[in-house]
C-alpha cells in the first residue's frame, strides 16, 4: 500500500455538465458567491463545484468551492401570499434556485471575483483533488470519511502526526455525536491505509514507521470488543449504501479493510478484594483477554504519583507545598528500600502511639514495619504529620506547616483511600508487579484502558499517571513511532477554569507533544469548557451534533454560520471536519464500525451461518 489515496473516479473523462451560472444580483467576491442553478440540475449542500473565469489578459483563474447554502424562491413576485396566486395559475412567476459557494481554493492565486455568468460545474476527479487540496497532500492523504456524493475526503497525515501540525479535537453531544466512534474510525484509517509507511518513506526516514494508540474507555464497556468483528456491520453498510445510492459498501469506497482492530490489549482495574485474593479484572462483559493493572506501592512512591491523587481539586498553595514535600519524602524512602518486594519498609513508625491503632500491621523481622496497603500508607503519613511527638509530628515532614493544612492533606487522602486501595498495592511479588504493571508502549498497537468502573478520583489518578508515563517515555526516546492518545471528556480532565496536575500533563501534550510524537485525539461535549490552549492546538477539528447554543460560542468560529446552524441537526455518523489544507469545513459520513462495540454485537461465528457452526460441533 504505497500508492497515494485514489480520489478520482476513473470512469468519467468528459467534464461534468453545467449546473448553473454565477449570479449578478448578489455580490460576487473571490471568497463567496452565489450561482443560479440551471433548470433540471440539482445542487445540494456540500457539493463541491468549480468555476473558471477569464482575466482580461486571457488567462484563466479557477475557483474551487463548497456549496454551503441553497435556496429557492419565487422570482418576480412581491408578496408572500402571492404563492397562492402563482399556484392558482393567476400570477406568472418563476422559481429561482440559487446556491452559495464558499471558495476553498483559487488557482492560480489571483483573487479576482468570478464574472457573473461564468459557468459552474460539479468538481470531479482532478478538480475534486484540487478543491480539497489533495494534490498538496500527496502521500500524506488518508481517508477521513466519505463526502455526500461518495468520494473520500482526504486528510493530511502530516497535519496529524506532528510534522506540520498535530492533534485532533472532536466536539459534540454525548450519544448522538458519535465522537469516540469517529476517533476509532480515524485510528482504523491511519493504521490500515498505510499512510504511516508512505509518510515515513516520503520523509526520508526510510522503512516503515509504526504508531500506537492508547484509548481510555470512560463509559460503558464499549471499547472492550474492538478486536472482535461486528455482526451488524454487513447489514448496516448494505442499508447505508442503498440509502445513499452508493455502488459499493463504504469501506470499499474508502479503500479500507472491513475488519476489527488486530493488535490489541485491554487493561482494566482489578476487582477490589482482600489482600491475597486472586487478581481479576473488574469488567462485567468480558474477562478473557483483559489484563488487570495495578501500581505497586513502592512504585507509587518512587515514581512520584502522589500528586495525581489530588487531581480533582485545585489545592491551595500550602497544600501543594505539603504534597510536594511528602512526595519527596516518600520518593527517598522508596529509593532507600533494599529488600525485594513491592512494599515500603519503615522503621520510624510507632503505631501504638496513635489514637487509633491501625489493624493488620505487618511487623518485619528487624523491628521495621512493612507498609503493604494504601490504608497503612495513609496511617503512616498521619503518624508522621500529626501524631508523632505528642501531636507535633516529625519536624522534617511537617516543615512548619499549620495543623489545618496537614489535616486537610490527610483528610483528602482518606477521602480517596477507598477508591485507590485496589489500584495501589504493596503485597505483590515482584513478578506479579511486573505482570500487572500497565505497559502501554511496548505491548500491542492499540491499548484500551478501561476506567469506566473507577470512581472519579481514581480515573483522574490513572489517566494522569499513565499519560505522564507516556510523555516521559517519549521525552526520552523521541518522536519516532507516533503515539495517539484518545481521551473523551476533556472538559473533566482539562477544565477551562480549574488547574490540576492532569491538566498540566494534557497541556504539555497539547503544546509539546506534537514534537515528541504524542498526538492527542481529544473529545468533549463542549469545547467552550475545555482549556483553550488544548483545543486551539488541535490542527484537525471535528464537530458532530452540537447543542445550538454551544455552537454559537467562539470556539466554533472556524465553522461558517451556515455550518453552525447545521451542527444542530447532524445525525450519528455524520461529522463536520476542518483541516488546515481546506479553508472550509467539510461534511462527511463514515462507515459503521467493523468492530463490535457491545457484547451482543460480537460476531462469534466469524461471519459464518449459525447452522454451519452447529454442524461443525455435531460432527
Amino acid at each position: 500500500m504505497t500508492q497515494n489515496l485514489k480520489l478520482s473516479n476513473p470512469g468519467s473523462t468528459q467534464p461534468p455538465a453545467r449546473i448553473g451560472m454565477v449570479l449578478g444580483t448578489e455580490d460576487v467576491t473571490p471568497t463567496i458567491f452565489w450561482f443560479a442553478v440551471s433548470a433540471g440540475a440539482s445542487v445540494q449542500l456540500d457539493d463541491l463545484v468549480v468555476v473558471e473565469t477569464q482575466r482580461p489578459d486571457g488567462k484563466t483563474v479557477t475557483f474551487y468551492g463548497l456549496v454551503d447554502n441553497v435556496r429557492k424562491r419565487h422570482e418576480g413576485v412581491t408578496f408572500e401570499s402571492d404563492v397562492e396566486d402563482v399556484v392558482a395559475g393567476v400570477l406568472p412567476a418563476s422559481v429561482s434556485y440559487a446556491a452559495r459557494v464558499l471558495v476553498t481554493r483559487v488557482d492560480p492565486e489571483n483573487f479576482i471575483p468570478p464574472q457573473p455568468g461564468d459557468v459552474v460545474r460539479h468538481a470531479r476527479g482532478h478538480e475534486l483533488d484540487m478543491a480539497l487540496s489533495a494534490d498538496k497532500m500527496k502521500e500524506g492523504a488518508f481517508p477521513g470519511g466519505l463526502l455526500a456524493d461518495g468520494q473520500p475526503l482526504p486528510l493530511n497525515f502530516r497535519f496529524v502526526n506532528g510534522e506540520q501540525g498535530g492533534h485532533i479535537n472532536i466536539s459534540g453531544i454525548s450519544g448522538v455525536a458519535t465522537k469516540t466512534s469517529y476517533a476509532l474510525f480515524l485510528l482504523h484509517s491511519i493504521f490500515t491505509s498505510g499512510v504511516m509507511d508512505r509518510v515515513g518513506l516520503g520523509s526520508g526516514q526510510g522503512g516503515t514507521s509504526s504508531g500506537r494508540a492508547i484509548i481510555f474507555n470512560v463509559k460503558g464497556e464499549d471499547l472492550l470488543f474492538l478486536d472482535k468483528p461486528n455482526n451488524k456491520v454487513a447489514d448496516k453498510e448494505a442499508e447505508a449504501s442503498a440509502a445513499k445510492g452508493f455502488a459499493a459498501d463504504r469501506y470499499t469506497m474508502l479503500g479500507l479493510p472491513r475488519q476489527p482492530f488486530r493488535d490489541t490489549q485491554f487493561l482494566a482495574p482489578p476487582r477490589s478484594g482482600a489482600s491475597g485474593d486472586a487478581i481479576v479484572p473488574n469488567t462485567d462483559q468480558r474477562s478473557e483477554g483483559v489484563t488487570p493493572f495495578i501500581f505497586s506501592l513502592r512504585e507509587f512512591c518512587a515514581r512520584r504519583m502522589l500528586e495525581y491523587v489530588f487531581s480533582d481539586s485545585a489545592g491551595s498553595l500550602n497544600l501543594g507545598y505539603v504534597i510536594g514535600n511528602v512526595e519527596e519524602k516518600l520518593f527517598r524512602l522508596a529509593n532507600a528500600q533494599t529488600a525485594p518486594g513491592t512494599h515500603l519498609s519503615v522503621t520510624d513508625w510507632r503505631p501504638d502511639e496513635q489514637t487509633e491503632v491501625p489493624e493488620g500491621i505487618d511487623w518485619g523481622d528487624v523491628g521495621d514495619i512493612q507498609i503493604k496497603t494504601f490504608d497503612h500508607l495513609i496511617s503512616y503519613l498521619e503518624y508522621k504529620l500529626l501524631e508523632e511527638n505528642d501531636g507535633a509530628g516529625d519536624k522534617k515532614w511537617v516543615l512548619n506547616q499549620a495543623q489545618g493544612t496537614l489535616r486537610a492533606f490527610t483528610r483528602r487522602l482518606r477521602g480517596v483511600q477507598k477508591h485507590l486501595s485496589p489500584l495501589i498495592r504493596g503485597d505483590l511479588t515482584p513478578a506479579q508487579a511486573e505482570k500487572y504493571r500497565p505497559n502501554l508502549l511496548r505491548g500491542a498497537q492499540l491499548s484500551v484502558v478501561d476506567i469506566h468502573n473507577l470512581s472519579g478520583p481514581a480515573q483522574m489518578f490513572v489517566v494522569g499517571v499513565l499519560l505522564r508515563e507516556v510523555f516521559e517515555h517519549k521525552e526520552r526516546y523521541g518522536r519516532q513511532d507516533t503515539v495517539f492518545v484518545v481521551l473523551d471528556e476533556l472538559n473533566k480532565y482539562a477544565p477551562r477554569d480549574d488547574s490540576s496536575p492532569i491538566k498540566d500533563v494534557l497541556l504539555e501534550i497539547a503544546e509539546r507533544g506534537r514534537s515528541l510524537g504524542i498526538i492527542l485525539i481529544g473529545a468533549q461535549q463542549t469545547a467552550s469548557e475545555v482549556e483553550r490552549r488544548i483545543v486551539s492546538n488541535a490542527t484537525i477539528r471535528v464537530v458532530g451534533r452540537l447543542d445550538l447554543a454551544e455552537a454559537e460560542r467562539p470556539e466554533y468560529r472556524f465553522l461558517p454560520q451556515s455550518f453552525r446552524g447545521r451542527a444542530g441537526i447532524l445525525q450519528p455518523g455524520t461529522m463536520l471536519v476542518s483541516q488546515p489544507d481546506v479553508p472550509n469545513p467539510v461534511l462527511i459520513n463514515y462507515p459503521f464500525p467493523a468492530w463490535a462495540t457491545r457484547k451482543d454485537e460480537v460476531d462469534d461465528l466469524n461471519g459464518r451461518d449459525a447452522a454451519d457452526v452447529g454442524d461443525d460441533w455435531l460432527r
Partner: protein
Amino acid sequence: MRIRLDPWPIDTLDGQLTLEPFKGLVFNVETDGWHAIAAQAIPARVRQICVVDGKPRMEARLLLEDETGTLSLAGFGAFVVGAVSLCPHGSRQAELREVKAQRVLAYSGDLKLEPTRLSPRNPHTGLLEYAPVTFAGAQLEGAKARVQRLMLDAEQQLSRDLASVMPLDETDQNVLPETLVLQDGPVRVGEAGRAVIGCVKTLHTDYLGADRIGLLGTLKPGERTPILRFTVGDRGDGSSSGREQRFTWYVRLSEPPFYQHPLAGVMRLEMHAPEDVDFVPRAVLDAANLSGTLLGRLASAPHKDARAPQNLIPTAALEQAMSRAMGSQELVTRRIRSHLAREIGAVA
C-alpha cells in the same frame, strides 16, 4: 354633503370615477329589464385566457439639425407589449408570453435616417438599436404620441394574434372560443371578429344615466348588469353614424370599502358588436356570463395594488415584466449620453 374617496391613488393620471354622461344613444340588447345578473361558471371549453397589455416610454427628447441648420423635434422611445397566458380553471401555472421591447427613433420630416445603434460598452449590457420612424407635423408631443401609437398597434396586433375567432351567431350553443383575450382599455377598431374583451378600469364615461347607475352600487361581487350596445363616438347629434358598435356591461369585482365611493370595485367590459343587430350573439352572452367569475379570480387586493381591484393580478405582473424588458431608464440615458459623446468626438 357626503364625501367618499375615489378609489385610485392621487398620483395616478386620473381618478377612477369621473362619470361624464355619454351623449349618444345606448340600447338594451339582452333584456329590457334592468337588474343584476349572477355570474356563471367558466365553461370547460375555454382553455386559455390571455391578458394583454403594453407600455410606452420616452427615453430621450432629441433635436435634429440638418445641413441647412433647420431644427426638428425627435425622440428616442421604447415600447413593449406582452401577454400573460393562464388557464381559467387553474390547471397550470400562468406564464408570460412575448414580452419584448422595441426601440424607435421617432422624428418628423423627410430626413432619411439610418437605425441608431448604441454599441455595448461591455458584453453584459447588450445592444440598443433604435429603428427610425417618422411622424407627421412638428408638434411638441409628436414623438411621444408616435411611440404611444406604435405601442397600441402592437398591442392590438398581439390581441388579434392570440384571440380565437369569435362566432357571432345568435343561438349556437357551445360557441365560446378556446382562447379569450382580456385587453387593457376599450377594444380597438380592427379587432372585430376576435374574442377580445376590453377591460376599462376607469368609469370616466357614464353610459347609464342617473336612473340606471344606481344598480351598480347594489351589485354583489361577480354580478353584472345586462348587456347594452352603443356606437363609438356617438355624440347624440347624428354626426358619428356608421362608426363601430360595441357591447358593454358592468361587473363588480369586489365589495367597496366603506370609505370609498359605492362604484369602487366595478369594471366596465366591452366587446365588438356587429352593426345594428338587436340580439346578443351567444358567444358574447357566454363571455359576459363568465366574466364575473373570471374577474373575481383575477382581481387584485388593495394591500398589493393601489389600483385594486381593477388592475388585475396578471396585469400587474405583466407591467412589472414589461418595465424590466425595457431595461433601466437610468442606464439607457447614460448609454445615450456616452453614445452622443463619442459621436461628437468629445471622448475617444
